[in-house]
């Protein structure tokens, strides 16, 4: 009798300890959501974010449930999408600049949900973090390559929208190219879209017809690379390795490496250690990387590698004075580098030497 009682007590304690164990190891998974501006198949910006989401899934396994919403327009639609995600998720990554106001609004209504807004700068409530990468460091590297590789001394630049992120890229690429090639000229075409392969291709053809022999893009599709290949000029990919679309045209691509950041942030939610932060990582932290360097002589590649090492070590800054603004007014004095805020975060001017009219 007593024996049986003991057994049942043992069973019970065993069972409860098992329950406790499973409860500890398999706590409710973190529910994470990603809002994308384009299709994940763009092989550009959204693709890179989606690769990051994949890394979260791979590393956290059952510890995370991920929801991804693609092609969300940057209008009131995005607020609706973010709101409905906020009802069911613990952390939401909104991965485009244009989601800034909707993210801020929804975050105020859902104080228990964590929000992570990419490329923005507004954190009015303590449940919003912002994060971006110093992509202008990548533009600095490809600018140097462009300056060396061009024969016509004309870089064609396909730009999306005049937001600080894009302006920084143009200025950084131009300054770097000019530093190795004083005769460099940059032609900028704004297409006012992130993803319209037809229009991006039209823009690339227009730039090539006007003498550009190097194409840089700040749009998300592989279209400019395919046109460069077809027309026999050189080009840089955007956000992910685009070698496959331009085996003879591709120089390198700036790769956005969001995965480690996403893993850290989702883990922080699981651990309860998440706080509102502002992250702006670059080459040194591994958030900005490069596809293989192709179709260039070794000297150019070595120079690019050296530049990357310098960025890694913090020895160079893409914006180092003396630099004037487009209208000739001084921006940075000799040897001066700009403060992160407001100069870099809100950059809204071209530097001296760029001929194009600033879009405003």
């Amino acid at each position: 009798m007593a024996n049986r009682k003991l057994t049942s007590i043992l069973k019970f304690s065993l069972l409860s300890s098992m329950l406790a164990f499973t409860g500890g190891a398999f706590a409710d998974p973190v529910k994470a959501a990603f809002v994308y501006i384009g299709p994940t198949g763009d092989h550009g910006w959204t693709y890179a974010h989606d690769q990051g989401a994949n890394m979260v899934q791979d590393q956290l396994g059952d510890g995370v449930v991920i929801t991804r919403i693609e092609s969300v327009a940057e209008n009131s639609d995005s607020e609706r999408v973010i709101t409905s995600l906020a009802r069911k998720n613990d952390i939401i990554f909104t991965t485009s600049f244009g989601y800034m106001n909707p993210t801020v609004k929804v975050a105020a209504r859902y104080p228990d949900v964590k929000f992570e807004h990419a490329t923005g700068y507004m954190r009015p409530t303590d449940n919003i973090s912002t994060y971006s990468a110093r992509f202008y460091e990548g533009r600095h590297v490809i600018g140097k390559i462009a300056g060396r590789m061009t024969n016509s001394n004309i870089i064609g630049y396909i730009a999306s929208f005049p937001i600080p992120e894009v302006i920084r890229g143009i200025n950084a690429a131009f300054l770097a190219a000019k530093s190795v090639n004083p005769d460099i000229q940059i032609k900028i075409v704004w297409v006012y879209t992130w993803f319209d392969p037809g229009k991006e291709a039209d823009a690339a053809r227009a730039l090539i017809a006007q003498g550009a022999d190097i194409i840089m893009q700040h749009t998300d599709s592989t279209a400019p690379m395919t046109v460069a290949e077809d027309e026999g000029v050189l080009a840089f990919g955007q956000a992910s390795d685009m070698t496959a679309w331009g085996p003879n045209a591709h120089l390198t691509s700036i790769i956005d490496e969001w995965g480690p950041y996403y893993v850290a942030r989702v883990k922080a939610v699981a651990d309860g250690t998440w706080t509102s932060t502002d992250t702006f990582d670059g080459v040194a932290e591994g958030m900005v990387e490069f596809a293989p360097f192709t179709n260039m002589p070794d000297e150019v590649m070595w120079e690019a590698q050296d530049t990357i090492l310098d960025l890694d070590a913090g020895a160079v800054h893409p914006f180092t004075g003396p630099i004037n603004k487009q209208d000739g007014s001084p921006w940075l004095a000799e040897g001066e580098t700009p403060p992160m805020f407001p100069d870099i975060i809100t950059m809204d001017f071209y530097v001296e030497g760029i001929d194009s009219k600033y879009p405003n």
Partner: protein
Amino acid sequence: MNEGLIIAIIIGISIASVPLIFAAIGELLVERSGVLNLGVEGMMIVGALAGFVIEFHTGSSFLAVLAALLAGMAIASIFAFLTQILLTNQVATGLALTLFGLGIAAFIGRGYSEENIQLISAIHIPLLSDFPIVGPLLFSYNPLVYLAFFMVFLVWWFLFKTKQGLTLRAIGDNHDAAHAIGHNVIRYRVLAILFGGAMAGIGGAFLSLVQVPIWGEDMTAGRGWIAIGLVVFSSWQPFKVILGALIFGGITILQLHAQGFDVRISAQYLSMLPYLATIVILVSLRMRDKNKTNRTMPNCLGRIFHSTS
């Protein structure tokens, strides 16, 4: 400006215009038969995907274009069945067709955005294509460019020079009368809708095979809607479709070049221009026609035909 640049601009305009010409000339015939199909965007994107997929797997441009044509017809046949047999509302069905096309193309096409293909090459006629200026301007395009212009001629010839074309126009203007004298309204309209689907499919394939050799979700980016606008712009006259498409494509390309040449106008205004021009032209046409009935618009456009016998 040198002549090389001018030639490049003209070729650029033709590339930007051709998808619109295909889609619009198909829709024009559909509307002439009295049917309004707002699903052009959906049929185009399905054609773009089908063309890309077949080109990728077979490497045959002919099969790719054929597949795009058939895919456009297949999705148009859904519209034909719903609106002509089940007599559903054409506007709602057309909108649904666009959403369905965009969705199913994105779904089927998922893996294909990873892939790339060769562009369909342009023709090269010995002697003619090598002739300076005239060669590149007239004899060095992709075969589909010539096909687009030929299709416009064909639709004009069909509508105005054949008995069947006359019947189709009669059906578009008064389906009850046409029915009363013994014409098969439904059959004409179904065939017109299938033709519209085929043309939209090829227009989409031009995007993914000639303009840029990739597949991307939503890559039609509203061109189907512009094609529908062009039909109105053309006052349902086939050759005016070419004019409208060239104006639209021309402004699109010229504004890109203007930016490259740094014309001192803000880029926002320049990229607004094609759409602005379309609206201005539509409004001015309307003003001109204000005091007379618009004689070219098919009277039965969008109206459901109830067979009474």
